């Protein structure tokens, strides 16, 4: 019964929160991430763009987010959404020296 009255506000909220969630672009260039650390909000996405003429990979074994976006060539990008607050370390399986710290806050 309430559905009729809830549907609109709920849809509105969903729209607003997805509009508020930001996308942060990080490049993989010269076997490094373009920044060493990044502050994001819960719900934000980080997009990794490979700007090197060879493959990069992106993965994390952090408590707040465990993922592997695979290996991909120059020009391609992959995205991950950070849905929990805390700290994540993002790495590359091909280049052991590549590390990015992501601080996710509420």
């Amino acid at each position: 019964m309430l559905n009729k009255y809830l549907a609109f506000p709920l849809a509105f909220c969903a729209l607003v929160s997805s509009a508020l969630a930001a996308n942060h672009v990080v490049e993989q260039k010269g076997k490094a991430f373009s920044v060493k650390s990044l502050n994001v909000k819960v719900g934000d996405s980080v997009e990794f763009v490979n700007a090197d003429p060879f493959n990069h990979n992106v993965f994390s074994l952090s408590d707040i987010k465990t993922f592997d976006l695979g290996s991909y060539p120059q020009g391609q990008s992959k995205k991950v959404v950070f849905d929990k607050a805390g700290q994540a370390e993002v790495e590359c399986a091909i280049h052991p020296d590549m590390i990015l710290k992501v601080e996710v806050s509420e």
Partner: protein
Amino acid sequence: MKRHGVRAAAVSLMLLGAATASPMAAAVDLPSDVDFPHRDSPEARVYRGSIVFSNYCVLCHGQNADGKGRAAKLYTPPPANLRKSDKTDEYKELIIRRGGAPMARSEFMPPWGAELTEEQISDVVSFLRSIAPEDAPR
């Protein structure tokens, strides 16, 4: 004892390759009665291959090459246990160069062709041969 130290130092200098040939080598007073493994000897290749392995492969395949690296839990199928591999050197070289996807294996086995030199690839294949089962096909 002392002699052993000098030998080990000289050997590792040698194994670490021509690229890093250092003037220090000349300063080491080499004992004349020891045989150094030649740069192209199987021992030298396996040793260099083990270094490549611990730099790039342990993350997934593990320090012990048994497939239990720290990132192993991310992958299904899991990283191969390279001590039990029944693949030939040729197959290993291909999957290392091209990655898992073009070989109809896991896309999470990365392609290393652009990252490693020809020598590093053949060295790591020699290392994998040295830890493969005796009866595995060559």
